[in-house]
């Protein structure tokens, strides 16, 4: 089934199909044509061939799940098209904006900006590291692809945060919501990355926007879980104290729970970012551009050089983004200063002003 919806279907897939038909003892010449014919012939065979053997019961398909799903998806796609376009629209708009910004900006500006952000968030070491890393990216000829991948990841993580943190808060506040959402998250996390691609392609088609959507679905779970956990782990005596001073729900959330849960939530954002990066790479199979596509092309053409460049680019991006978001989880005092604005470039600027 998947070979049909896979735009990358090439000769290798054909040979796979041929193999499977060859190994099918019931496979007549007609059954190789298409899936409908195959399922038809599968359901038709028992009538013609009466030698059903208990020893080999699975030589025929009992439940034609594939054709059911196909009809189901067809029905969903035709009847809910407005819904899917509505889902795509905000993702599309955000992605286009971020992607064109990253790609249009002069590389030098991007490098400097990244260095400054890294300096502010973490320190001089990471700043130097990320500047060197980004220069390497450009030097090995992966700049354009890196920026595309970065735009995809940033868009996905943005949506993950916007969707995930409120969901996590809802889970923390209501046990019933938690009971409903938790199994959904379990399913989302246990489903292998590859398997997501199938329904997404069916419902949203191929390209960067479906790529971002699949990444959001794949990567949103950690930020939801850790937001929930962070809020639930706020010490009960602090909750009680806030209550005793007359905090309402909103004050409780914004003045007590969220600030105290912030390190945990940031750990969730970090995890989401890492998952997002890995998914953006896998999503190159549904025609998503960027570093992942370099790797995929390299493998497809046995071009080891191209694949390696893509791989190195991904690793460099991953390390930079990971370090940056990890330091978000610490507050300024853990890094030895009172306030975040006392260090980094802003601290320097303020010191100059005085």
């Amino acid at each position, binding site marked *: 089934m998947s070979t049909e919806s896979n735009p990358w279907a090439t000769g290798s897939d054909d040979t796979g199909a041929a193999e499977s038909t060859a190994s099918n003892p019931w496979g007549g010449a007609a059954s190789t044509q298409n899936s409908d014919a195959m399922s038809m012939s599968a359901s038709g065979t028992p009538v013609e061939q009466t030698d059903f053997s208990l020893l080999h019961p699975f030589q025929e398909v009992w439940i034609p799940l594939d054709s059911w799903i196909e009809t189901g998806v067809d029905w969903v796609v035709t009847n809910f098209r407005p819904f899917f376009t509505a889902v795509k629209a905000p993702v599309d708009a955000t992605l286009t904006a971020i992607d064109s910004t990253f790609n249009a900006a002069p590389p030098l500006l991007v490098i400097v900006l990244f260095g400054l952000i890294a300096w502010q968030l973490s320190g001089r070491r990471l700043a130097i590291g990320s500047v060197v890393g980004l220069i390497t990216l450009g030097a090995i000829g992966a700049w354009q692809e890196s920026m595309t991948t970065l735009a995809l990841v940033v868009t996905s993580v943005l949506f993950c945060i916007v969707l995930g943190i409120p969901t996590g808060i809802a889970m923390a506040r209501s046990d019933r919501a938690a009971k409903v959402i938790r199994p959904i998250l379990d399913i989302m996390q246990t489903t292998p990355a590859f398997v997501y691609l199938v329904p997404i392609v069916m419902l949203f088609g191929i390209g960067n926007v479906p790529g971002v959507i699949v990444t959001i679905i794949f990567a949103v779970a950690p930020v939801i879980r850790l937001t929930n956990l962070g809020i639930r782990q706020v010490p009960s*005596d602090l909750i009680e104290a806030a209550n005793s*001073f007359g905090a309402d729900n909103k*004050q409780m959330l914004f003045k007590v729970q969220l*600030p105290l849960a912030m390190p945990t939530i940031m750990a969730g954002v970090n995890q989401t970012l890492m998952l997002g990066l890995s998914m953006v790479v896998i999503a190159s199979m549904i025609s998503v551009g960027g570093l992942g596509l370099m790797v995929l092309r390299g493998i497809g053409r046995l071009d080891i050089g191209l694949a390696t460049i893509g791989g190195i680019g991904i690793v460099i991006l991953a390390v930079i983004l990971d370090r940056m978001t990890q330091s978000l989880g610490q507050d300024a005092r853990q890094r030895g200063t009172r306030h975040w604005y006392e260090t980094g470039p802003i601290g320097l600027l303020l010191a100059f002003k005085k």
Partner: protein
Amino acid sequence: MVTKLEVKNLYKIFGEHPKKALKMLDKGINKDEIFKKTGQTVGVKNASLAINEGEIFVVMGLSGSGKSTLVRLLNRLIEPTQGQVLIDGHDITKVDDKELRDIRRSKISMVFQSFALMPHMNVLDNTAFGLELSGIDVQERHEKARNALAQVGLESHANSYPDELSGGMQQRVGLARALTNNPDILLMDEAFSALDPLIRTEMQDELVRLQSEHQRTVVFISHDLDEAMRIGDRIAIMQGGEVVQVGTPDDILHNPANDYVRSFFKGVDVSNVFHAKDIVSKSRLTLIKKDSSEGLRSGLQLLNEHDRDYGYVIDKSNRFLGVVSANSLHDVIKNKQTLAEAIIDDIQPIAADTSIGEIISIVAHSPCAVPVVDDQQKYVGVISKARLLETLDKEASV
């Protein structure tokens, strides 16, 4: 005395089916049996208290006696199952959430055993937390918070974070936070129990001092009888969720309601509980009244008759004048001097409300039984070495 806070027939049952447990309680079934049969825990059972305005009211009990539950019922951090909590005659068990928040913001503050300071806020913001919740703007609340910090002597630490302070300082911040709202009622849930004994005493003194500056109604939860005796105007003793006795420290010490209450006093440091006036003896010793006529000879004779070495001189209105000895009287008579010169300067009277711990060395070093006077210099009685020993011995025998 105006009743500030009143608790009427208050019950708290923890569990899914409180009604069932309530019915069983009415039938007189005890709490362990109710737990065995229904799984419901009786937290507080039929508690009734009337707490006066401006007093420090201590609720005492061992752990599990329901005292922490009781104090949380007062500001509804725990919802009562049945009964009334009246603040100024207004039943807060009936108010809606908004009104309850207003009451918590303005009338009633709480200090916690675990301090419960917000780790992400500095001391000043922590202190201003209650006002922040009431929506007071930054400048005003910081100013009030600074005042409160000054009251507890921590204004210099306004920019520190809680984890940079010692336990005692953290609890001062907790106290300042509760005071910033300027509440009528202060609930203190084992507020000083997590502190070491020295700091605890210091904090108790602090509380009493604050109380002398501004009279609030304080409900103080404690498991420490020394603490309760030290700061409490009145004490309620809880056992198994019930209030078994309410009274002044003296009442409870002298007339314990049952063995449970009595058992509290085992190991209590009597020297802090009793005062000089509690152990004076009034009889047995000769008094010489000072008339217009000096009566020196008659005095000496009186001492000799009763075989005493010392006499305690008071005037007609019972004011204490001093101590004379048979020897000093004898000398005065020989030299034809007045009674005033016979008084021995070395022996000074003790104030009636001095605790016994403080008078031990005075009594030990005095040649005679030490006289005790009240705050108007009126003679109350004397404390002899034997009497003091006897009292201290009670500590072991009670």
